[in-house]
């Protein structure tokens, strides 16, 4: 196990390095630097002063080297647009995105896996078709459209839910204020995440229940619920865990559109601000954090594999 972890750590460092090189050079190649985010009527002198202040008159390689040096000592630099440390800006926003992610994933798993199983064991039946239909709908409806429709219905017409924001935090915190702000964004994210889990559960279960050992268990007279939940599900879990391992980083890296529509101050809106403002250090910082999240999720998935299925050995 230890050897496995050391190995993975080494791979991760190399991966991180590659990601930072590509990102750093790509954003610097993109047309329009920070000086072009100034007001349109900024004078050439004002733009030049900005370039010099941010050190952008230095060659890209030199800037990358000094950025990397800082990054290794845990200093991701200072945000161009706010002059605050990048680490602080990300730390301010990350909890909000984690909040959305956890609710979305838990709800999707609680609903998705049973529905997927139902769909698999009743294959070809009316419920199966209905589930399939809604899965496709959920996968294809664009988040921005659904979000605006929900706002129209629940905020403007019915006046039940706030149309945006994260609710009061700290001293003014109240439970309903918090939940009411969460409902719509979580609903939107769940409609995109849930169908993935349903479909993977279904196909994975279908494969497992057609295998010989399931027939053998049934022939031994085991109760159907035991057959499905104990014997079949456990073996069907690996692909489901894989997809969850893919979905979590997708959510943690910020559901940009959903967060923007609902004014949810998470990583997604921060990415948008960073890209719009050509805030290079912030873009780099977020990229690193997201890469680490992806690497960690993959690692956890691999460890969980071996717990679920003893045949998978990482050691």
């Amino acid at each position: 196990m230890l050897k496995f972890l050391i190995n993975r750590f080494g791979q991760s460092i190399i991966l991180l390095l590659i990601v930072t090189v590509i990102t750093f050079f790509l954003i610097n190649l993109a047309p329009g630097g920070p000086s072009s985010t100034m007001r349109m009527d900024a004078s050439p002198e004002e733009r030049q002063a900005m370039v010099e202040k941010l050190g952008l008159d230095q060659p890209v390689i030199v800037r990358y080297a000094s950025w990397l040096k800082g990054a290794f000592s845990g200093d991701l630099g200072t945000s161009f647009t706010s002059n605050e440390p990048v680490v602080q800006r990300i730390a301010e926003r990350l909890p909000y995105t984690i909040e959305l992610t956890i609710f979305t994933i838990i709800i999707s798993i609680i609903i998705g896996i049973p529905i997927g199983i139902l769909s698999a064991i009743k294959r070809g039946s009316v419920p199966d078709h209905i589930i399939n239909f809604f899965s496709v709908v959920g996968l294809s409806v664009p988040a921005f459209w659904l979000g605006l429709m929900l706002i129209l219905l629940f905020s403007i017409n019915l006046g039940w839910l706030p149309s945006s924001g994260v609710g009061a935090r700290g001293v003014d915190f109240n439970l309903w204020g918090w939940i009411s702000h969460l409902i719509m964004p979580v609903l939107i994210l769940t409609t995109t995440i849930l169908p993935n889990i349903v479909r993977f559960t279904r196909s994975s279960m279908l494969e497992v229940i057609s295998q010989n050992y399931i027939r053998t268990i049934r022939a031994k007279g085991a109760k159907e619920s035991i057959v499905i939940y104990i014997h079949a599900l456990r073996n069907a879990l690996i692909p489901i865990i894989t997809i969850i391992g893919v979905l979590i980083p997708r959510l943690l890296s910020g559901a940009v559109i959903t967060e923007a529509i609902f004014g949810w101050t998470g990583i997604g809106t921060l990415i948008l601000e960073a890209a719009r403002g050509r805030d290079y250090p912030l873009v780099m910082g977020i990229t690193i954090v997201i890469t680490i999240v992806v690497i960690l999720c993959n690692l956890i998935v691999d460890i969980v594999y071996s717990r679920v299925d003893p045949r998978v050995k990482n050691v």
Partner: protein
Amino acid sequence: MNKKIIITIIGIMGILFLNACSYGADNTSTTNNDKEEDPQKGGKVSIPIVADPTFNPWHPNAYAESNVVNRVLFSSLTKPGKDLAPSPDLAEEWEVSDDELEWTFFLRDDVLWHDGEKFTADDVAYTFNEIVLNEELGANNSSYFGQLNKVEVVDEYTVKFVLESPVAALPAYLGFNTEILPKHIFEGEDPWNLTSFNKENPIGTGAFKLKTYNSGQSVVLERNEDYYGETALLDEVEYKVLGDANTHVAQILTGELSIFALDDLAAIEKIENADGVDVYARDTTRFFWLILNQEIEKYQDKEVRQAILHAIDRQTIIDTVLKGYATIADSGIAPALQQYYTEDVTRIEYDPDLAKELLKEAGWEDSDGDGILDKDGEPFTIDFEIGIQGDLEAVSQMVQQYLEEIGIKVNLNAMEWNTMIQQVVVERDYEMTLNWWRYPADPDLSAYMHSKNVKGNNIPGYKNEELDKLLDEGAQTSDIEKRQKIYIEAQQLMAEELPYLFLWYPQEAQVRIDKLKGVPDLSFGDALHYINEWYLEE
């Protein structure tokens, strides 16, 4: 096993709950001041901003979202009057020397900073001498003060602006995002890296002071009881950080927002039909333009520029895309500048036949019958580069169609805003582009059309000695009557010569809940100077 999962889930939710209770707790200070029972006093207005503000009007990162906050937190020497002519703010009155090279401003002696310190002439001198005139800093709007040599302190409440050459628009410039900063906080600090001020705890002189600020969420200001003018009626002004314009519309319909200027007019009908929300058309000092790069020979011909403008049905664009929120422009001086505006100019009407005729005179004719004009075997094609923002794309597509109707092939290239700035504004690598200017309430348009600014904001690269002369004369005399004569002549020349193809003067669609009263009939940005007069009606 099932139990374990459930316990884990409950545990996670519990942690989240505790987490939600705790973070965001800093920055929040509760104040329990007893409210007076005056019926007009009290309440809170909410204003959307698209990103986190920077509480420093001169900071190169202070954009529109910062301006609307800074205008309320800080004060400047002058402010636009309700007729847009410069009126007193921190300066009670001012006078100019006979040679127009020295302006003396007499300051109020009853102004306190939000931290209780006294405001004096030293603050004004510090702001200009150390920040605006420090070229290394590249302060926002410092280009307005290119002719300023220094600011001298005459006595505790008098300052003298010493100029290199006369600037008649100085009082107007001093009321346009040029708020004064406190010397006692900035002295000895790097003004751009003073995060404790610029991002956390600004100290101004305005009618409201900072109460709380949560990055990415909101800025809440509370009434400054020690304000030197009329104390504000509202208790609080809240700026909500909402990046998406659709959310602004949704929130004003639900009453979560109070007032803003609507950029994308697509939603205007929905708002006009809603109860409790009104839309007002407000004149602004802006003009939309189409420009043809003057580096390219064929566009140096005045007839070609006129022909292209004749081909565009501006009224139809105004009625459709802009929902009527604009009036046709003949020059750059907007009707909002009542003192200077004139309608007595040559108007370029929509007339595609005349357009074709003018182009024919210039040698452009469809000789090979392919529907595209040509000259010496060269087809008339234009590369049309625009940035994506608001209505620009929709407008540009209509312009493209109108030009193709008279036989000009237009390749429209819409790009992301910053990319456009880099390519068009910085590198001048374009053939035709469409955009707008917003300027302080003064008719001096030298920055956009004077030949000395071809490397600056004279983006078309237009050079005309006659216009230069008029602009110089106008800039150098502060005698209103003389200026009126000069700028009427300048408008006539602009309308004829078309340094820019003037499209229209946009009107701002100001969206406001009808409970909010006391807002003067000005554009939203200018009305903010009078936020102490705003109130909520029950």
